[in-house]
Each structure stands twice: as structure tokens, then as C-alpha cells.
């Protein structure tokens, strides 16, 4: 298992895409921090980039990588190895590579320019999003055999998480604003890891505004230790569940 993980990581870290991704993130973060006059504003500007780019790249890159290494996977399967070992190794390899790229690209500038609570939260959330979307990509590829359709599905999934979900939430919010929907809304935001991460960072960046009417509800939930534990659990579940579904399917799959 360790051997496969090592091989996958070595293979990924040599790939040009990962290097370009790391470099682009680094250039973006450094330029954002040197342009904005305060660290807080830098974190806010970076927030949109992280919430947008990290899921997209994690999802698309993992999908493409898996389709490209279909033959390699077939080869591994023909060896006396357990199928779940192979799949876990591939997941760990991809997850390590993606989060490492993020940590180098965004983490180092954040530590240098904005080592604040909001900066740290941004780093943690970005790393979590990397893992989650690698896991989602595994699920998408294992379900769809055709490469073009698989990549299409990934892009659709990304569109859904990054844009459509928010539009739906906004619509529901306007439609049901006369009802006590606060708790429901918090629960709803848990259905999208991007939203959950965004709210977590918001609670650090816009703390004054979040102390207002709605903030009271957010804070009661996200601000307490119990709420934090639940949120962290939800993010872990978002990593584990798609991966678990994919592993179940991979074990039965006729390659």
C-alpha cells in the first residue's frame, strides 16, 4: 500500500499541472496580499479565489488523472492486491498532492502576510476542500466509464456546488422569509462544503456583522465548541462518504 501511495505521489508531484497550480496559487496570493493594505482585506479577496478555484482544480484534475491512469489501475488490479488497498492508495496519493499544492501555494503566503485567525481558518478550509473534492472526483469517475462524460459530470458537480446551490438557497430564502427558517438554513448550508467553509471564514472576517440578528444564530451554532465539532464532522463526512461510496462501487466494478 505504501509503495502505491509513494508511486502515485511521486507521479503527481512531477506532473506539470500540479506545479502550475501551485505556482498560480502562490502568485495570486502574494499579489493579493501585497496589493491590499490590510491582511484582513487580503484574506477576503483570497476567500473568493480559494472557494472557486480549489474545488474546480481538485475535482477536474483528479478526474482527468484517474481516467488517464485507467490502464495503470487495471494493471494493479491484475496483481495480487486487494482492490480497496489500491483505491485507498490512489485517494491518499491524490489528496496529499492536492493539499500539499494548496498549502505551498496559499498556506505559505498566508503565514507570511496574514497569520491571523481568519488566515488560519482560510488555510484549514482550503485544505479540507481539496480533500473533499478529490473524494467527489473519485466517486464521479468510478460511476462513469466514458472519459468525456466523466469530465462533464465533474464540471456539472462543480457548477452545482459553486453556483447553483447558492442560487437555490437564495431563492428558498426569499420564498420562505416569513417563516422561522434559521435553523433550517444552517442545516441546508451543511449540504454544501463550499458554503460551510465560507461561513466558517466569514465568522472570522466579518465578525462584527455576524454578531447581528442572524449572527446570533450562526454564533450559537458555529461559534460554540459543539457547533465547531459538528461542522468539522460534517466536513470529514463530506470527505469520507463519497470516497466510501466510490470504494464500494470500485470493488464490484467490472473493469
Amino acid at each position, binding site marked *: 500500500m505504501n509503495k502505491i501511495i509513494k508511486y502515485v505521489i511521486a507521479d503527481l508531484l512531477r506532473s506539470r499541472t500540479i506545479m502550475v497550480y501551485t505556482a498560480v496559487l502562490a502568485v495570486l496570493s502574494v499579489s493579493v496580499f501585497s496589493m491590499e*493594505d*490590510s491582511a*484582513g*482585506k487580503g484574506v*477576503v479577496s483570497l*476567500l*473568493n479565489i480559494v*472557494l*472557486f478555484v480549489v474545488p474546480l482544480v481538485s475535482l477536474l484534475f483528479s478526474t482527468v488523472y484517474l481516467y488517464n491512469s485507467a490502464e495503470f489501475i487495471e494493471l494493479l488490479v491484475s496483481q495480487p492486491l486487494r482492490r480497496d488497498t489500491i483505491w485507498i492508495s490512489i485517494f491518499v496519493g491524490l489528496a496529499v498532492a492536492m493539499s500539499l499544492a494548496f498549502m505551498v501555494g496559499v498556506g505559505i503566503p498566508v503565514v507570511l502576510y496574514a497569520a491571523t485567525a481568519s488566515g488560519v481558518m482560510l488555510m484549514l478550509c482550503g485544505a479540507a476542500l481539496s480533500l473533499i473534492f478529490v473524494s467527489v472526483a473519485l466517486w464521479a469517475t468510478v460511476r462513469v466509464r466514458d472519459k468525456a462524460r466523466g469530465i462533464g459530470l465533474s464540471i456539472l458537480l462543480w457548477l452545482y456546488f*459553486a*453556483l447553483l446551490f*447558492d*442560487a437555490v*438557497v*437564495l431563492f428558498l*430564502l*426569499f420564498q420562505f*422569509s416569513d417563516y422561522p*427558517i*434559521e435553523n433550517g*438554513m*444552517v442545516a441546508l*448550508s451543511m449540504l454544501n462544503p463550499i*458554503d460551510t467553509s*465560507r*461561513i466558517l471564514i*466569514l465568522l472570522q*472576517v*466579518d*465578525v*462584527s*456583522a*455576524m*454578531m*447581528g*440578528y*442572524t*449572527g*446570533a444564530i*450562526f454564533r450559537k451554532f458555529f461559534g460554540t465548541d459543539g457547533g465547531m465539532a459538528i461542522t468539522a464532522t460534517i466536513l470529514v463526512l463530506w470527505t469520507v462518504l463519497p470516497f466510501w461510496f466510490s470504494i464500494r462501487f470500485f470493488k464490484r466494478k467490472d473493469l
Partner: protein
Amino acid sequence: MNGWVNYVLSLCVCLLVVGMPRAATIKVGKQHAVHTITKALELAADGDTIQVDGGVYREGNIGIRKRLMLVGVGNPVIDGEQKYEPVSVHAPYVVIKGFTICRSGHSSMKDMAGVKIYDTHHVMITDNVLDDNFFGIYLQNARNCTIRNNRLVAYGKAEQLIGNGIHGWKCDRLDIAGNTITGHRDGIYLEFVTHTDVQGNQSHRNVRYGLHFMFSHDNGYYRNTFTGNGAGVAVMYTKHVRMEHNVFNENWGDAAYGLLLKEITDSHIADNTFAKNTTGILMEGSNRIRIQRNRFENNGWALKIQASCMDNTVTRNNFIHNTFDVATNGSLVLNTFERNYWDKYEGYDLDNDKEGDVPYRPVSLYSMVVEKYPMAMLLFRSFMVTLLDRTERVLPSLTPENLKDDYPLMQPVAL
């Protein structure tokens, strides 16, 4: 010549001697003849000084009805035993200095206070500690009084169970300076108080407001700090107020405001700092106020200006790192925004006059949305919302057309 000097000298001595008995000093304490302050008050005549040594004095209510000076030496404690009003002042020209006055009775019927001043003038309360009283210092129908350098501490849990720190009712020309007030209902409460200066006070963590006044015209508030009070600062129904160099910060909550202005007119709010409040200033029915040279930093909403306000001028302020700069609740705008620095301004300055060439619209679409649907804060800073805001900036349709700063500054105002 020498005789003349002698004459003047002896005249001086005579005058001095004649004046002496009027200013006797009565010492109170264990090692003196007089053991209680009440006894000393009986013995004293107008103009005397009562010097009280350290120790605890439990004498029920001490009523001062003569023109006396009470000086505490070695921090004497006057204890109200949670039953009495420790000190009541009924006479003018009374000075109370250097005492710890504690544990007054609690009564909503009688409004008991650590020190209560009734219908008099020229009273001075300085350098005292007021600990665990219902009201701290209560001025009722008083004139020309001075309340300086006192420390007021109470341990209020709920609004209805505790009184105000410094409470003025129907007073004129007070001087309230350098006091520290914590844990009362309102730190400083003034009602029907006029021509008063409130300077250099610290009002922290009171249950309701740090400062609260109503119908109190022609007053000035300078260099005070109001931090972390239950609902910030609220001022109402008043004309001709000056608020300068104050700090309003960390007032957090749905109904907490750095400064709530309700029906305030013809006033000046200048050189203040509003930091980390949920709402920096909320203006309701307030007219002809000049808001200038203030710093608004890290607030949720820097300035909420309701459509019921008119002829206000907001100029030369710095708006830095607020979640929302300005919010309003209607489309009618009768106020002027000019030459402020907005850190969210994205325009340019081609003619280099240090003023942006395109107007800045401080009201974002989403701040209007959040005003109407507070839950929408959930989606703040998501891509959808940023997109909506951008579109609105380009083509204003929902945000008030006229609420804009035509000459936004490119650099922060030096304050």
C-alpha cells in the same frame, strides 16, 4: 513707612483670626473623640471640614444638611448594609472626597443611590470608589455640580435589577469627568440635563447603554470611551449636542449600536472612532447633524441612515474594512455624503486632485437585501452575491440613486 507695614500685617492677622473659627476641622475615627460621621455632622457648623480616618462606618443613612467638606483619609468605607442610602446631600457647597461608598439598598420605589444629591447646587464628588450600589451617583434637580475621578462598580445581572452609574435628572451645568463606570444599567444617564460637559469617562460593560440621554440639550461629550456595553450608546430627543473624540467600540448584538441617534437635531459628531461594532451609527429621525472626521473601522454596518433623516452631512470620514459601509431602508435620500475615504472605492483619479473621478455608491445591493431578509447574511461573499453586487454597481436599480459620494477621496483623511 515701617509703621504702615505693621498696620497692614496686624490687620491681616486679625482678619485671619476672625475667620478661623468658621473653618474648624473635626476628626472622626477610632482614636479621636468623635467616632461616627453622624455625630460629627451634628457638631459641625457651615464651612467646617470633617476628616474621616480609615475604617468601616455603618451608620444607616448619612444626611448632609450643612455646607461641609467631607474628606476621607486612608480610604474609609461607608457601608449601606444593603438597606440604606449611604450618603444623601441636601446642602449646597458640599464636598465629598476620598471615600469608598458601598452596598446601598436596592429599591425601585425610592431609587436609592450610593450618593444622592437633592435639589441643591455646587456639590463636588471626587476621587471616591462606589462599589455595589443600586444607583451610583444620583443628581436630582441639581445645578453646577462636579463629579470627577470616581470609580463606580456594580454587578448588575439584569436591567430591572440595577440602577444607573451616574444618573442626572433635571439638572443644569454639571461637570462629569474622568469617571470609570462598570456593571450598572446605563453608565451615564441624563434626562432633562442641560449645559453639561461629560469628559474623559470610561464606561465599560454596563448592562444596557454606556451613555444614554434624553431631552438633554446643549451638552458636550468629549474623549469618553464606551466599550462592550450591552446595547452600546443611545441618545434621544435632544438638540445641540457635541460629541467629539469619543471611542465607541465592541458593541455587539442585534440591537446594539456604537451610537444610536434617535430624533437628535442640530448636532456635531466629529473626530470619534467607531470600531468593531455591529452597527457603528444608526440614525433615526435625526436632522441637521454634521458627521465629520470620524473613523469607522471593522464594523458590521458603519452607518445605518434611515430614510426619516434629512439634511445631515457626512464628510471627511474614513470608512475602513467595514462589512457594509452605509445601509438605508428607503429610496429617498436627503442627506449629503461628500469627500469621505471609502476603502472599497475602485474608481480612478485622472486629474490627480486626490478625489476620485467617478462617484462612489456606499450602499451595496446586498446590504439592502440583508436589511430586508437578515438571514441572507448566510450567503454573503458567495460568488452569486458578489455577482449581484457588481451588476448593481454598474446599473443601479434597487439601491438609492442619489446616495453617493461625488468626490470620494483617494487617500484616508489624516486624523
